Each structure stands twice: as C-alpha cells, then as structure tokens.
C-alpha cells in the first residue's frame, strides 16, 4: 500500500478533524456570524492602570516586546496597544512606546497615530513618543529602565514576547512604584512577571485578549477551533480513563503510531 500508511490512521483522523474545525470556524467568522469570546479580566486591569496614570498626571510606558512583526505575540501586542492608546488619548495622558525592531516601530507609530485620530485628538500625537531604542537585548532593557527612573511613568505595560532581560525592566518599574501589567507567551519570563507585576496575561490569554479587541475573523476562527479541540481532548481523556476501567484499550488512538511506539 504505497499510497497510504495504515499505521498512521490514528494521526490522519485527528488531523482532518482539526483542519475541519479551523477552516469551518474561519469561514463562519468571515461571514460575520457573531462568535462568543468570554470576557478577559486582564482588559479591566489595563483600564484601571490607564485611569490611575491619568489621576496622577504621569505618562504611560508601553513595551511591545523584543520579537519581530511576524511573531504572534507582537501582532497581539499591536492590537492591545491600539486600545490603550485610544483610551490614553481620550484622557489626554501621554503614552511612550520604546521599540527594539524597526518594522515594529513603524507599525506601532501607525497604530498610535490612528488611535489618537479615533479618539478625536490627532493634535496630541507626537511621533517621537514612539521611538527606536536599540537592537541589543540588554541595551534595550537598560535604556527602558533608565527612562522609568527619569520619567517615572505611573503605569508600565510589557505586552509581547520577552527574553531574559525583561527582569531588569519589571524590577525597575516595581521599585518606582508604577502599576505594571504584563502579557507574554514566553514561559521562562512568566514567573518573573507574575511576581513583580500587578496583573499578568498568561500565554494564550494574550492572544484571546487581542482577538476579543480586534475580532479579526482569521484569528477569531482559529481561537474558536482551538477551544473546540480542547473540549474534545477533555472529553477524550475522561472517556479514556473511564474506558480503561472497563478494559477498553484506547492506546491505538492516542498517537502511539506504529513507527513511534517502539524506537
């Protein structure tokens, strides 16, 4: 049988199921059918932080992370930056966005400019509030930490993909007494953000917050498809355990394909 390897049926069927879910939900989302996405508590924390910065008349610092524009976390960060900039413009609170990547810089400038227009305050937008710092990982962290100590922003946002140097920024922000909100999918940095920030969007929560705000059909459809897949997985796990009690062996289905089982 050169045209199909039967040992891989247990991978083909789940693959087809998931592809069907993704394509199906993206088509549904594109037709404008309203797909429900639950409320993300993190977004309330973001609004509270902007309110607090406005009360204290201090600027907001927003770091979009260190990755390039083609990374999921940076795309999500731009969506959330749009919302924060719109709210900040409404409250006439200054927002500064230090960048590490020239492409992300140009996208961020565009996002903040259109946010100010949307809030009806195009005059408030200053191009040098969204500026390029350096490509160096440590240079960026040291520069942002220096800015925090000088300008003392009341609210710091770290939303995107971060690497080992994020610690320097989160620590300095904590010592200047700023309220800090983080959102990242980089697992090694999450423990440090959770303990030094007031609220942290964890991994997929960051993507969900971006979808909740942007409602972009392709990402909305994918999110719903992944949710349904998680539901199927939960049901399968419960069914598998109950089945195992009654001697039903589901090994064949749980991905122990012929080639992989031995080794």
């Amino acid at each position, binding site marked *: 049988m050169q045209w199909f390897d039967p040992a891989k049926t247990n991978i083909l069927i789940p693959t087809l199921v998931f592809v069907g879910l993704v394509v199906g939900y993206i088509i549904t989302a594109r037709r404008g059918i309203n797909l429900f996405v639950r409320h993300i508590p993190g977004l309330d924390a973001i609004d509270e932080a902007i309110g607090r910065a406005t009360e204290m008349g201090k600027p907001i610092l927003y770091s979009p992370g260190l990755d390039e524009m083609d990374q999921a976390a940076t795309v999500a960060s731009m969506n959330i930056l749009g919302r924060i900039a719109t709210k900040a413009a409404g409250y006439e609170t200054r927002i500064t966005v230090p960048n590490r990547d020239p492409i992300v810089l140009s996208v961020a400038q565009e996002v903040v400019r259109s946010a100010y227009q949307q809030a009806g305050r195009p005059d408030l937008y200053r191009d040098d509030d969204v500026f390029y710092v350096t490509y160096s990982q440590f240079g960026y962290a040291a520069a942002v930490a220096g800015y925090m100590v000088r300008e003392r922003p009341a609210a710091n946002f770290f939303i995107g993909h971060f690497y080992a140097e994020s610690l320097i920024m989160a620590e300095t922000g904590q010592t200047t007494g700023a309220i800090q909100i983080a959102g990242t999918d980089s697992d090694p940095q999450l*423990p440090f953000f959770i*303990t030094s920030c007031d609220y942290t969007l964890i991994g997929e929560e960051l993507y969900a917050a971006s979808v909740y705000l942007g409602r972009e059909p392709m990402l909305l459809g994918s999110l719903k498809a992944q949710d349904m897949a998680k539901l199927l997985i939960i049901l399968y*796990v419960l069914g598998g355990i109950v089945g195992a009690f009654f001697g039903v062996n*589901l090994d064949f289905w749980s*991905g122990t394909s012929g080639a992989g089982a031995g080794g």
Partner: protein
Amino acid sequence: MSHDPSVWVTALLTLAIFSFLWRENPVFRFAEHLLVGVSAGYYVVQYFYSGIVKKLIVPVRQDPGTNWPLIFGGALGILMFARLFRRLSWAARYPVAFYVSSAAGYFIPSVLEANVLKQIGGTVTAPGTAMAAGTLPVVSSALLVLGVIAVLVYFFFSVEHRGPVGSLSRVGILYLMVGFGASFGYTVMGRITLLLGRFQFLLGDWLGLI
C-alpha cells in the same frame, strides 16, 4: 596567575561585561558591540560554509549526475537577497513562502502527534499504570489528570468562567502557579550555574586561586 595572553584577553573582556553591574558604561558598550560584531562574522561564515559549500557545492561536485537539482535550491536561495533592494523585495517572497510553508506542512502531523496526541496518551494511561504501584501514585495520577483538564479549562475562551467551569478554571490557575513556581526555581538554578562557570574561569584559569 596565568601568563597566557589569551587567558588575559578573555579575563579583561569578561570583566568589561561584568562592569554593566556598576552601571551601563562605554567599556561595556564597547565589549557588547565587539561581541555583536565577532558573533555576526562567525555566524555568517558558518551559514555560508554549511548552507552553500557543504549543502550545494560539495554534493554537486561529488556527484553531478544525481545532485544537479540542488542548483535550483541555490537559485531560490539567491532570491532571498532581493530583500536588500526595496524595489525587488517582492522576489524574496518566493523562498520565504517555500521554506515557511513546507515547514508548516510537516509540522502539522508531527506536532499534533507529539504535543497533543502523545500528551493525551500519557494522561489517559497514568491512572492505569499507577494502579499497580499503590495508593500515593494513584492519588498523584488523579491529581495529574485533574490538572491537565483544569489548565485546559483555564485557557478555554468560549464560555464565561462562572459556575463549575469557573471553579475548574480557578483550580487550573493554581496548577499554573505551581508550574511557574517550578520554572522560577529552575530558572534561578540555571542562572547561578552560569555565574559559577564564569567564577571557575576567573578564579581558576586566570587567577589560579582554586
């Protein structure tokens, strides 16, 4: 105290980087940019030598008869450099589309098998294997299954987190926090080992004190 000039070069550069601890200073910035330059130069040689010489020139010269199709791969690769010229940068989309999408293609079944199916398999079989091992392992396997389900529910966005779903989600966040605690402990451990390695060099190879 070592008399080898190479050891001295390394020691001074190591101290230049450590000077960042005092504060960001010109010596550190010089060392950092020296590192960026040397590593960029080192990497580009490795990329050229292994990507072009070893994967294209050597096989074609070894056996032109069967390996000539590799030349088309080289042509596709050259197209990448079109990105350096604004007008031509659209041409770079062909090689990028090729390598990103072909990777996407072979990742779908393998990531599904390794990240999803095998992980589910390990979770489903855990209680069974624990049966033979006694009470604590059975309790642990039950906690393992509960944890996987609770964490999946925490990252479930199609239903408001109220009622049973809400409580399962709150159990999920507790598991996540213990998981991040373990990451925190292991990350600190890793960082200290890196420092240990530098002290081994400074105190041992350079100063000869240990």
